[in-house]
């Protein structure tokens, strides 16, 4: 078990290194291959009125003329030990983990990300709880009553859930829960949890439901398929033959086995989501990582886009690491290999 954990940890670190290389390559090497000059990068850090000489100088100072490997090493070093940047207006220190400076306002990217994280995390956490409970229980009931009216209704709704775009379900939930039932704020506001938990939740209900609906649909279908399979297994018959109550048969024996693939998917979905729920955040103008990324893309602010990308990748790698470790706890057969 311990070697398994260590192996997975090493794998995760290696994965992160590769991810940082690929991200770096996409955002800094590919544009250069496509014809962007070091000056083009440098010119984004200085005002429009800058003379070509100034741009040249900044490009030199920020190291855009160096070989790609050197640039990557500097970038990676920035993340691990911090970096010094020189824009010509004096040297600035960029603390660990240094993801570079915004093209636009010359602010370091990392503190921005730190600011945005609680928003996205709150959104993802609440939605995840809702979709897990709703999706899994719907899936279980659907599987147990296959072909019933409930099953058909649930699977029809689930199909709608996976195929309808967020802005559409967002509109519908807005009308129903906010204007209709008056349960929640119409969106667009954000209150810190520490400040006022009630208001925090009140403001988030709508985005939670919208986001959860999308995922619950997938989870309901996956749970239903898994339950149909496991409830036909021999060990279910054994459980019944022991005289267990049907409820225990379903939950302890059926659902227990069906949950493993759901756990994997959940880890990856959640990891991806806390890196930014782009559509939901922009639909409700929540100041989270997804919204941040969208704005950065609109402004062509590469360091920000890269920062969010890298952070998301970290979350996904971390999530899959946790899933792998949990898997070994959940499925004893995994511990063998």
């Amino acid at each position, binding site marked *: 078990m311990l070697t398994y954990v260590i192996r997975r940890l090493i794998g995760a670190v290696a994965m992160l290194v590769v991810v940082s290389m690929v991200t770096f390559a996409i955002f800094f090497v590919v544009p250069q291959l496509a014809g962007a000059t070091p000056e083009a990068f440098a010119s984004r850090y200085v005002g429009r009125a800058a003379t070509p000489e100034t741009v040249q100088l900044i490009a030199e100072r920020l190291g855009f003329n160096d070989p790609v490997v050197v640039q990557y090493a500097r970038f990676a070093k920035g993340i691990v030990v911090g970096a010094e940047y020189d824009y010509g207006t004096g040297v600035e220190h960029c603390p660990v983990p240094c993801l570079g400076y915004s093209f636009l306002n010359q602010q370091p990217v990392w503190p921005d990300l730190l600011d945005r994280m609680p928003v996205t995390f709150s959104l993802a956490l609440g939605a995840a709880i809702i979709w897990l409970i709703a999706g899994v229980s719907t899936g279980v009931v659907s599987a147990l009553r296959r072909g019933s009216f409930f099953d058909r209704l649930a699977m029809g709704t689930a199909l709608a859930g996976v195929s309808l775009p967020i802005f559409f379900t967002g509109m519908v939930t807005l009308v129903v829960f906010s204007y209709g039932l008056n349960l929640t704020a119409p969106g667009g506001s954000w209150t810190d949890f520490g400040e006022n938990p009630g208001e925090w939740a009140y403001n988030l209900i709508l985005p939670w439901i919208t986001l959860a609906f999308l995922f619950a649909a997938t989870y309901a279908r996956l749970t239903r398929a898994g339950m149909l399979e496991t409830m036909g297994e*021999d060990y279910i018959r054994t459980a*019944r*033959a*022991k*005289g267990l109550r049907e409820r225990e048969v379903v939950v302890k024996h059926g659902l*227990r*086995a069906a949950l493993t693939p759901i756990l994997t998917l959940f880890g990856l979905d959640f990891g991806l989501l806390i890196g930014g729920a782009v559509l939901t955040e922009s639909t409700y103008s929540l100041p989270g990582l997804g919204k941040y990324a969208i704005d950065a893309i609109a402004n062509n602010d590469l360091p920000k886009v890269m920062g969010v990308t890298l952070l998301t990748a970290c979350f996904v790698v971390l999530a899959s690491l946790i899933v792998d470790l949990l898997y070994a706890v959940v499925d*004893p*057969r995994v511990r063998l290999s």
Partner: protein
Amino acid sequence: MSFLELKDLRVHFPTDDGLVRSVDGLSFSLERGKTLGIVGESGSGKSVTSLGILGLHKGGPAKISGEIWLDGEELVSATPEHVRQLRGKKMAMIFQDPLSAMHPFYTVGAQIIEAYRVHHDVSKSVARKHAINMLGRVGIPEPSRRVDDYPHHFSGGMRQRAMIAMALSCDPELLIADEPTTALDVTVQAQILDLMRDLQSEFDSALIIITHDLGVVAELADDILVMYGGKCIEYGNAEDIFYRPEHPYTWGLLGSMPRLDREASERLLPIKGSPPSLINVPSGCSFHPRCPYAERTEGKSVSQVPELTETDGGHLVRCHLPRAERRSLWENDVKPMMETT
């Protein structure tokens, strides 16, 4: 009334292709301390019968009629909840493939503990001691260590022993073993059969052993019921079935029995053809398309369903051939052929 009595049990499954008559009018009785072997090719309705006795068709698609009397209680008309309470405690079952029949995510001990605690209001540690004790009794070495192993850590034979320990954990009065050795290799088979014999005399329960191989029940069963197409076609004590069989299908089963002095591939008198459809059951005697003697009954084999009739004290046969003809066929035709080849 006997400890277990089935009266005209029918289990039918409505399907898109038609009604599947898996069990079609089965009756037998069994006393405590006795062993019944139910023998028949695969698809003859043996498993459906045993699941029916345990009440595991309740709430499913099956249509069940007839009566199942267990210790004076009728189970077909009993509530599912009542039968659930008997399941595992009064009657228990051992399945064919112990690997798929045990839950891969729980330790062997946890599964036995669970089986015990459904019916006994005891603490986990008491149940655990009981589980270790049971594992020891079925011959698992170092039971206090193996109790925490998962099923996949066990060998096939050990797993079946654990399954038996689980089934016996609540000291059931009726134990049904559905092909308990089919998934095991030959040497292990013999060990498991020995174990079951020992345990049965120890627990004094009624035992039903289900198998497609007459060899399995040869030394274990007091009585043998031969099943074909959901019906009993011959019933008698072990000597009747092995030394004085009167049904052509039983002759076929005896002829196709794997024997130690022969390779499994050179079977003596393989039964031609395949088991009957349970949806469009052949007319008359459902064995007639495969029976070498069907022409000897003046067409009755094709047109009339034969009754199960007594040929001797407690020996029942379902065949249109006159008794004298059956006996002479066995003595003069079939038996000599088996002995010479």
